[in-house]
């Protein structure tokens, strides 16, 4: 049984929280001296009205959420955030249609960073700020923030926590979900502050530093410039952003172990982190080598390769060079890294490094089994055996990811998009990266795609952000069966 009043009331509270952040943006807009505040104010009124209505109309006592209710709450909240977050864009008139505004908004909240803006710099600064803020809110997780600060979620919290925070099996920091969520958000805020200060010291102005901090820590990718990070032409800024992208791509649970509990061995001894850094290093070397052999200076090649590999692998999607001009091999390598993504428990998307690592081990075990027919062996991660159930659900997840990817590509090509663009656009959306290849590369945008293609990609972004199951399950019949 699904208790709708229960869900809608909770959604109402989340929408009120969104209204709060819209109000904050409006205040900043006043400070930035924006000429036209009406889009933001209209959005505040709409969102505030809806949130207020839901919380007042459904005065059910706070209760625990069942499994299904939890899933519905998460999906509805995300869709509501994307729709209401699109209002300032829509009202501003800079976006051709609500489809475009919604695409931009969901791309923000899911930390994808794909844009339909032809000329980003033409957008008023208050909207640019809101664009980056959607990243930051969605990065650590809307629901996770709700669990941390809203008292309305009690025991059902773990269910919600898992649906949004990648790497469900990652251990809790504190016995209580609310405390765990709070600790994660505090770390997130602390890192953001650090990055902001670093960017300011490197010479960025306040506005750009705030926006880029939001985009980096959430591994989003919205920039305030048409040329993304390339526009700043500053090795120092690039270095800072590389470091913080890498940080954001690592499990926040492990950050906690390192920074709060000071257990460095837990951090550096973690196989996922080792594999993650190895992939970054390997990808960088390969691409740098190819670039150095062509037109780039060796040092310059290393610099752009490192930036691009980190940006793609952490699913941020900033660019410091137009990699569409690079050789097809490097482009495919980047496409492959899109699938890998960051670590579990980070703000990054993708399949996640730990899953990839386990996948290799499972395949290796399959081979071993073929040779030693009676051999029994466990798949291990960080010394602990991984249960067969976990392996099963891992394989399912990978299968589903590829299925969606394929279905998305079919849909896009049916709508007249070319193959390379379709593959890259779907992957870049699903894994929340942003820029793809072909006609949606770093120097292009998604504006020219048909409206229906934009909705397909929006769906892919949300499905990817919530790790597929949460979104797909509500389309199954058994979910709705009493």
């Amino acid at each position, binding site marked *: 049984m699904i208790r709708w009043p229960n869900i809608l009331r909770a959604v109402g509270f989340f929408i009120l929280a969104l209204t709060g952040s819209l109000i904050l943006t409006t205040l900043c807009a006043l400070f930035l001296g924006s000429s036209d505040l009406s889009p933001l104010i209209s959005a505040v009124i709409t969102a505030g009205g809806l949130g207020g209505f839901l919380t007042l109309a459904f005065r059910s006592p706070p209760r625990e959420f069942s499994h299904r209710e939890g899933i519905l709450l998460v999906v509805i909240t995300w869709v509501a955030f994307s729709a209401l977050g699109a209002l300032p864009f829509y009202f501003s008139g800079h976006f051709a249609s609500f489809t475009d505004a919604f695409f931009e908004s969901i791309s923000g909240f899911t930390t994808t960073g794909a844009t339909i803006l032809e000329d980003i710099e033409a957008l008023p600064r208050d909207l640019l700020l809101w664009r980056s803020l959607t990243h930051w809110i969605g990065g650590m997780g809307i629901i996770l923030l709700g669990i941390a600060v809203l008292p309305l979620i009690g*025991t059902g919290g773990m269910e919600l926590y898992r649906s949004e925070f990648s790497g469900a099996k990652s251990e809790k920091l504190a016995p209580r979900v609310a405390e765990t969520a709070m600790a994660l958000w505090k770390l997130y805020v602390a890192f953001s502050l650090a990055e902001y200060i670093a960017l300011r010291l490197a010479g960025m102005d306040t506005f750009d530093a705030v926006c880029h901090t939001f985009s980096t820590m959430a591994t989003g990718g919205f920039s305030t410039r048409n040329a993304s990070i390339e526009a700043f032409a500053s090795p120092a800024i690039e270095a800072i952003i590389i470091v913080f992208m890498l940080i954001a791509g690592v499990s926040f649970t492990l950050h906690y172990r390192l920074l709060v509990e000071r257990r460095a061995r837990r951090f550096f001894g973690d196989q996922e982190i080792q594999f993650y850094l190895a992939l970054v290093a390997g990808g960088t070397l390969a691409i740098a080598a190819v670039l150095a052999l062509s037109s780039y200076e060796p040092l310059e090649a290393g610099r752009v390769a490192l930036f691009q590999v980190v940006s793609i692998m952490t699913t941020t999607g900033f660019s410091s060079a137009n990699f569409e001009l690079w050789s097809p091999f490097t482009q495919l390598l980047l496409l492959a890294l899109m699938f890998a993504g960051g670590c579990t428990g980070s703000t990054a998307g993708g399949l996640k490094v730990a899953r990839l690592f386990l996948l290799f081990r499972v395949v290796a075990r399959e081979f071993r089994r073929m040779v030693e027919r009676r051999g029994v062996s466990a798949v291990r991660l960080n010394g602990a055996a991984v249960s067969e159930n976990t392996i099963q659900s891992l394989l399912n997840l990978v299968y589903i990811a590829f299925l969606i990817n394929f279905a998305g590509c079919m849909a896009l090509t049916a709508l007249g998009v070319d193959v390379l663009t379709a593959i890259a656009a779907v992957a870049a959306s699903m894994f929340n990266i942003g820029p793809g290849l072909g006609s949606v590369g770093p120097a292009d945008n998604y504006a020219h795609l048909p409206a229906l293609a934009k909705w397909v990609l929006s769906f892919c972004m949300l499905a990817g952000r919530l790790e597929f199951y949460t979104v797909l399950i509500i389309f199954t019949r058994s979910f709705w069966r009493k």
Partner: protein
Amino acid sequence: MRQLNFPCILHFSMRILILGGGAVGASVARRLIREKNEIVIVEGSEEQCAQLEDTLDAKIVQGNAASIRTLQSAGLSDADMLIAVTNSDETNLLSCLIAQAHSDVKIKVARLRTHEVDLWRSVCGGQLLNIDLVIHPDRETAERIQRVVGLPGISDIQEFAEGKVTLVGMNIAAGSWLVGKSMEELKQSGPPSNTLMAMIFRGNQVIIPRGDDHLRAGDHVYIVALADQVSDTFRFMGVEEAERVKRVFIVGGKQIGIEVALQLEERGIQVKLFERELSRCKKISELVKDTVVVHADGTDQTTLVEENIEGIDAYLALTGDDEGNIISSLLSKRLGARKAIALVNRLDFLPMAQLLGINSIFSSRLVIVDRILQFVRKGHILSVTTFRQEEAEAIELVADAGPKFIGKKLKDLHLPRGAIVGSISRPSGEVIVPRGDSVIEAGDRVLLFCLERLVPELESAFIVGSGRETA
């Protein structure tokens, strides 16, 4: 040393490590979470872990509770309290030993099920192994059960204030003269001077009665009386006095059945214990003295009739199967047992079982929770007793000087509806069941009945610093 914790908003509770995530561990955890404590549970079975993870706001660690590494990863060094309630005595003792050697856990609680629990108690108080509380829930429940065996009208008897105050639970039968009477009318019919109607359980409701509340047929009531007035109270309430108990049937040869059998045969009562498993029967027969162990299904009508169930003083359904216990005790009533007692561990069954007309129902799970709460709560809490579905509590505490309820007449306190003072024992040894003009002084032992949700408010009214400061 407590490790430096990330500053969190909710940091005023105890961190409690529960070993064993079975039915007992889970119900203890659920209650302690409700009381705002941080819970970590160590459980061996992966399946059970997943289940706990879904239902409790607690950290779940999978592993062996007697493994040092597991306990450390569960945060043994940060824990304020360790509660060992796995199914194995050995594991429970071993984990307490580990806790003693490896960290400074302040309070250690272990559940033991062995018959040698008294011997263990003396060991556990020593230098080698210092366990603060050893709980043998089966024995404690058995004691409560054997107290009411000879009293068909009485469902439960508990003692407070070092035995000077008795709490009597009884069902209001349809034909009783009490039906329809208000508290005010009862008071005018001349009850023994020091008695008080403390709680009424009606359907799913709990009522802490006031003057205008009426009794109804089917109600289950609790009455506070001074120990020396219990017989008078029985007479007043129309309950037949205790007769000599001669014959008792016990169904189920689990630990608790054996405990009850041992205690009853001590009193010279003829006990028949039914157990279906032959090997278990043999083992039981070695433990008991005069009890007849019957290798048969004690829930089977033919068997019961053959064994002369008609006219037995009590039928105790103490198997591990809640539903079976409820059904078979109903059957026994029909076959002529004078009293039926059922062990029902699932708390959600309790209101229904009461409505069906089973004379008394016990749950050994609540005993554990009660004992532990005494340690978890702050202040001079002497005991906590939880009733039925954990909706109501009896709290025995020592009133501190200072708080707002001390030194005033009870009628001026404006206690919230849902709370009542059951008895006051003065340091001088005088015990009273209070009236409106009684006054609580600092140092008095107060027995308080209240709904569970009022507990924090009331504790702070009687005790200085019960505000759950960081342990």
